[in-house]
């Protein structure tokens, strides 16, 4: 990692959690700011222009979604990594579709989180096993009927394979090793999946996320 240390802003309404993350990341990244609510976060991001914003999903006044909506469009260089205790599909998918580059749960270890921050800073996507599972589930089944953008609405065989390996708990490097491709290629696949997830008009996607919570699959 020859690149400079990433500059990070932590947005979370729990002070205890913020300081925990800050101390865990201290050796790996440069935590330049903290924010406890949406207003603070937007001001802080505008002001400090960090590389990566670690953002909590559930906060008062609209939560992480609101922060991304208000802060992301002006500053393309700022990237968001969602960090949450929630593993509900609708939260995960909503954050990704709003523009987050990845989603990790709060139980992630310090070094893993530092690595994820760097990866997001470099423009790559960060998929946890659970997120990979969600995506596979969301894109499963028959391709949508004509009229839809097939490119965006389906995963390629290779992308599926990569996601399956991530869901099985392999790190990107290990996935590359197992599939006999370079780590960069794995990252490219994951980024492609992220783009599809964000741009796909596949109408089932949002509904799927909602329904997964309401109705148990048969």
């Amino acid at each position, binding site marked *: 990692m020859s690149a400079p240390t990433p500059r990070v802003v932590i947005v979370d309404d729990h002070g205890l959690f913020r300081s925990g993350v800050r101390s865990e990341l201290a050796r790996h990244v440069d935590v330049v700011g903290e924010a406890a609510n949406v207003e603070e976060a937007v001001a802080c991001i505008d002001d400090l222009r960090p590389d990566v914003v670690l953002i909590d999903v559930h906060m008062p006044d609209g939560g992480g979604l609101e922060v991304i909506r208000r802060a992301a469009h002006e500053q393309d260089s700022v990237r968001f990594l969602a960090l949450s205790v929630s593993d509900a599909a609708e939260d995960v998918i909503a954050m990704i579709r709003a523009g987050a580059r990845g989603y990790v749960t709060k139980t992630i270890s310090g070094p893993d989180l530092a690595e994820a921050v760097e990866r997001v800073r470099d423009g790559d996507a960060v998929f946890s*096993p*659970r997120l990979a599972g969600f995506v596979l589930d969301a894109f499963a089944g028959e391709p949508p009927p004509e009229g839809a953008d097939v490119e965006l609405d389906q995963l390629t065989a290779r992308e599926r394979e990569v996601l399956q390996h991530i*869901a099985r708990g392999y790190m990107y490097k290990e996935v590359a090793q197992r599939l006999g491709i370079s780590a960069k290629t794995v990252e490219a696949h994951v980024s492609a999946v992220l783009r599809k997830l964000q741009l796909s008009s596949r109408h089932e996607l949002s509904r799927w996320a909602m329904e997964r919570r309401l109705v148990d*699959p048969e």
Partner: protein
Amino acid sequence: MIGAMAVLADAAPAEDMRRIRRDPEAGMIAGVCAGIAGRAGIDPIIIRLAFVAAALFSGAGLIAYALAWIFIPARQGGTVAARLRPARGNIEAVLGIGLLVLSAALLLRAAGWWVSDAVVWPAIAAAIGGALVWRQFVGPAGAAAPAEAPRGPVQAETRVEPLPGARRLSVAGVGVALVLGAALVFLWANGALDAAGDAVLATVVVVVALGLILAPVWWRLGRNLAAERAERIRSQERAELGAHLHDSVLQTLALMQRRADDPREVAALARRQERELRAWLLDRPPARAGESLAGALEAAAAKVEESHGGGIEVVTVGDCALDDRAEAVLAAAREAILNAAKFAGDAGPIDVFAEVTPQRIEVFVRDRGPGFDPGSLPDDRQGVRESIVGRMERQGGRTEIRTGADGGTEVELSLERGAS
């Protein structure tokens, strides 16, 4: 009236009043006769004839019927349609009965079986008013308090939806007015008021004034009752939430403080509590574990985690019913998870990934342990292998065990669906 009460009492002794239920679906009018006959175990036609015969004696049967209708509750558990019959139907029925009583009264009057206008008309008005008042406050189930919607006791008559408090009171008010009016008319018609004209006027004025004063209080009372009920529901919810948190989260936190010297145990406790809380928040019934492969797999992993510690992350894509074949995969997967937790649980998290497609079921169990050579397994672990590999083979499935270059073992189970 006395005759009417006697008939009513004969037909339905006070002790049995509670148990007789009108049967509106089987009845001709309101099911009174059908209900009584059903209770007595005889043909309804006998009861009907008895009522008709009683009706011929100065309309006693009609009044008895009306009273029975009012006081005998309808049989519960009637069809939904019957219970939801619109109120208009009730009004029509009441109107019909009223006209019947009226015509019977006129008939009797014309026939000369008549006491006196000054007695009968006020008596009828008082009977109606009294019935209205009694209906509101002395429900068949003794429901004097406002009914608890929507599971309130089924009221007499086909109306099941209990009246809201305010309407209840206004209906009762009409009843009170009828009874008082009837009493006044009776007194006036019998000349009893001549002597006390001024006193009556004064009384009326005072009553009206009191009514004006008390009406808003009454109205407020109704509103307060509704607010009180909402508050009670809210506090019940709070109590339930509090009880749950107390039983689960607080207990676990206390336990964790006592075990603070054992990080593994603390982590396991935290994981278990987290899982429980998530399931509770998502309102996910634990019964799901017995029905679907994904649910059962999650439950199995949770169980292993509880007994052996370590973090087991289960990710599932798709799902299927837990038939014999899925059951075999589940048993094999459970064994693999158990092995991973036993021999590699300390080395890092264990990932379980299951994907169910219409074509096949695949389960991957991956640990971060030192790995082992499947060919060099000691005999005592051969049995364990049997319960994974053998089980899968018997169902026509496949097992692959891989160890990575830098450690970590992955057990892959796959089973074609549809094939046998």
